């Protein structure tokens, strides 16, 4: 696999994952009820 493709794969997936993990804690506007349901 070529260097640019490998780098693109890593960072595209990395950035998407970073956003998916971080958006909730960053915004912190999600109702507590949803949070409690998700946490069980």
């Amino acid at each position: 696999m070529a260097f640019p493709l490998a780098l693109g794969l890593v960072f595209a997936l990395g950035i998407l994952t970073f956003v998916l993990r971080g958006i909730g804690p960053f915004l912190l506007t999600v109702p507590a009820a949803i949070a409690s349901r998700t946490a069980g």
Partner: protein
Amino acid sequence: MPSRRTILLRAAPIGIAVGLFGVSFGVLAVAAHVPGWAAVLMSAVVFAGSSQFAAVGVLASGETVLPAVIAGALLNVRYLGTGIAVARALPGGRLRRTLLAQLVVDESFALGVAAGEPGHPDSRTVVIVGAVLYGSWVVGTAIGTLLGPVLGDPQRLGVDAAFPALFTALLWPMLRAHHGVRCALAGAAVALLLAPFTPPGVPLAGAAVAGLWLSR
């Protein structure tokens, strides 16, 4: 709140399993012609085993980078839910919370929920377990890329069986309540129904949505 020593003791066996899984990923990535450095960097940047396996699996099947990224990202949609669940438990401002949330993986989330109060996972457990698993995952991947040519097919070693067993063990304590059993069964049914017809990640996302819906 559990002590740091207790948390580390709880994390240790999972860390070993994750390390072995990391070795397996490194071997598989090299076999799929992903450069060793890229596999290690991916583990360091993405830190999501199932997603990384899916992406490399798509590449190994002859597809290009874009479908690989989409498959991997679909599997990580579940982190939206776990991120929301831990958001209020994490300390600090926006930036700190966002960075700490990167240590939330399935295992650290499950142990954090088990150690916390209903609706409020124990953030210390989430962060410490996440940090332990991060280290073992990246180191395991590095070892895997170095040993790849020697070890051959990782499935031959049976390492791939470790994670279903691990997730079953993590799920077990959450099945004490009736609604937990109901959500787990519904999630499993949706995942099994979608698996033959949809790309990797969709069954997992569907199962998460079903579980979330039923837990209302």
